[in-house]
């Protein structure tokens, strides 16, 4: 029995709750690791091994988790708002795959030695090309099937390209590297990685968050949005560029992590009254919480092979995706 009325949660409380969850997840993330020690100990003894582990291993890892999680949540919400489709998200639509290809290309062709920032730039270019291709294949008003098929095609191309890169690598075990990229990980990252992607991620966030109102207007269709004063062309440019910047840079450093942009906006949408604009900020927070919690789970599950972050999000996301398709099936057909 569907609800006939919609009660929006007050935005203030929504952000308070999400913010608190984020803080808790962040603290949790820096407290979990192979070594067990209390944060207080590490903070009080600045030159102990624990302190270095906290500041130089765990803190960058948690920060990256925050940046990547917020990026994926935000980009998912933005793409869904723009494409007016609840199944749109960077992973499914091939943006993440394209970013991985771009990053891998820079990494293995040695371009990264010229200039470390080439790595996120490669990821951004890859993501950018993916979004352009998506738009060309599917068009602005594409139905769900067309969009997802286009995403599948782009993902396949990206994966094939990534595998071809193996030819450039002398290391005979490079296949493992590609597998790592595909599965995504935050392990053993350092502040170098954080600073490498920070400007791009922040720029992308700005572009996407700016579009809240335009996405709301788009709920009424393109022509009405136009008549309300929205410039569709610049909206499209900002969404494309913004998503490419933050997703591209994040994937470049952490590999492919999918489904966050699908799960988080979907769960939060009813809480923001289905408003695509308000969903942006909430999804950013929610995405960060989800990734940080998944990263905690990765470290707490004892296993021989290190459990990859992308695997955890896929284990959550793929069934969720199927469930969504099932639910929306009636509306699609």
């Amino acid at each position, binding site marked *: 029995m569907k609800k006939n009325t919609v009660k929006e949660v007050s935005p203030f409380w929504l952000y308070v709750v999400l913010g608190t969850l984020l803080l808790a997840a962040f603290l949790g993330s820096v407290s979990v690791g*192979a*070594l067990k020690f209390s944060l207080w100990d590490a903070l009080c003894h600045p030159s102990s091994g624990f302190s*270095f*582990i906290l500041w130089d291993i765990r803190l960058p890892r948690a920060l990256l988790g925050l940046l990547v999680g917020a990026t994926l949540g935000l980009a998912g919400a933005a793409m869904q708002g723009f494409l007016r489709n609840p199944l749109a998200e960077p992973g499914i639509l091939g943006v993440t795959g394209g970013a991985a290809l771009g990053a891998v290309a820079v990494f293995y062709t*040695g371009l990264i030695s010229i200039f470390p920032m080439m790595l996120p730039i490669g990821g951004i270019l890859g993501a950018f090309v993916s979004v352009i291709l998506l738009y060309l294949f599917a068009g602005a008003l594409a139905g769900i099937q067309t969009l997802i098929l286009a995403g599948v095609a782009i993902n396949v191309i990206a994966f094939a390209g990534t595998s071809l890169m193996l030819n450039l690598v002398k290391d005979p075990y490079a296949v493992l590297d590609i597998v790592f990229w595909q599965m995504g990980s935050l*392990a053993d990252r*350092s502040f170098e990685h954080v600073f490498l992607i920070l400007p791009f991620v922040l720029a992308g966030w700005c572009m996407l968050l700016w579009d809240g109102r335009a996405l709301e207007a788009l709920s009424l269709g393109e022509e009405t949005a136009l008549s309300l004063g929205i410039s569709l062309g610049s909206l499209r440019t900002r969404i494309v560029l913004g998503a490419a910047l933050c997703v591209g840079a994040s994937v470049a450093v952490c590999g492919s992590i999918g489904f966050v942009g699908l799960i988080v906006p979907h769960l939060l949408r009813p809480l923001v009254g289905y408003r695509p604009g308000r969903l942006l900020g909430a999804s950013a927070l929610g995405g960060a919480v989800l990734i940080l919690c998944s990263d905690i789970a990765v470290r707490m599950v004892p296993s021989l092979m290190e459990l990859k972050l992308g695997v955890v999000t896929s284990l959550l996301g793929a069934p969720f995706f199927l469930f969504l398709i099932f639910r929306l099936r009636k509306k699609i057909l």
Partner: protein
Amino acid sequence: MPGVSKAEPSSSEPRDSGPQRIVSINLCTDELLLRLVTPDRVAGMTKFSDDPEVSTVAKLSQGVRKIPGNIESVLACEPDLVLGGRFNGKETLHFFRYSDIPVLIFDVAKSFEDIYGDIRRLADAVGERQKGERIIREMQEDLAELNPGTTHGVGPFQHPVLEGLNRAVFFQSDNYVPGEGTFENAVMEAAGFRNIAAELGIRDYGRIDLERLIDARPDVIIYSSEQRNSKTVRGEVLGHPAIKKALPDVRIVTIPTLYLSCGSPVSVEAVRILAKAARASPLGVGSSDSLREDS
């Protein structure tokens, strides 16, 4: 169709001359072979033997015919002995096991004793027993010189442990560390070090979390040069800034990968590099020294 035949060289082979058309389809057997026989007795070997970055016999292998190692290419050499490793070329070796042509398969060496055994076995097969024994003796003398007090008895060789800063760990891509029962472990012990991975109970290759690595406070961290210098995602952890920050006094030693990838007489060089690190001043030893040993 060739009949079934034993895989050992038959006793009817002349002891002095031995096989004259030997084919090797594995880089490690390439290396052992060229140290025991002259190149004119080699009818085919792998193309890797020419590459000075991975082969320690690159100079010796010039002029020898290079083959891809599949059945046809080996047959084309008309071999009278085929050498291979346990983990590659399986189909080829399987084919030749059922032929009249003798086949010798060598396992990955896990210790210096294994190397001595491999040398003896190959020397016997190619009729160069004396040369083989000489090579083994030289190796033993070198090792004894590098770590005084090393003795080679009938059983495994004894080597003293260094005093003082003697805890080492060999940190490899994707957080792997060689523990007890690996060749890297044998090299570390021959140089007089305690292998932290072995202390943690790791057998063969295990993984160590970066946090645990730091917590173990090694005196020396060893890297393999190819992993350290090439760009791979799994190799990124090797250069993590936390290592230098949390362990400012640790000595870093980089061993050229080609000294370790095959167990051969040249592997003594790996021990030499480590032994040098043990005796040098804390900040003095680094990859630059190790790479100059490369030739």
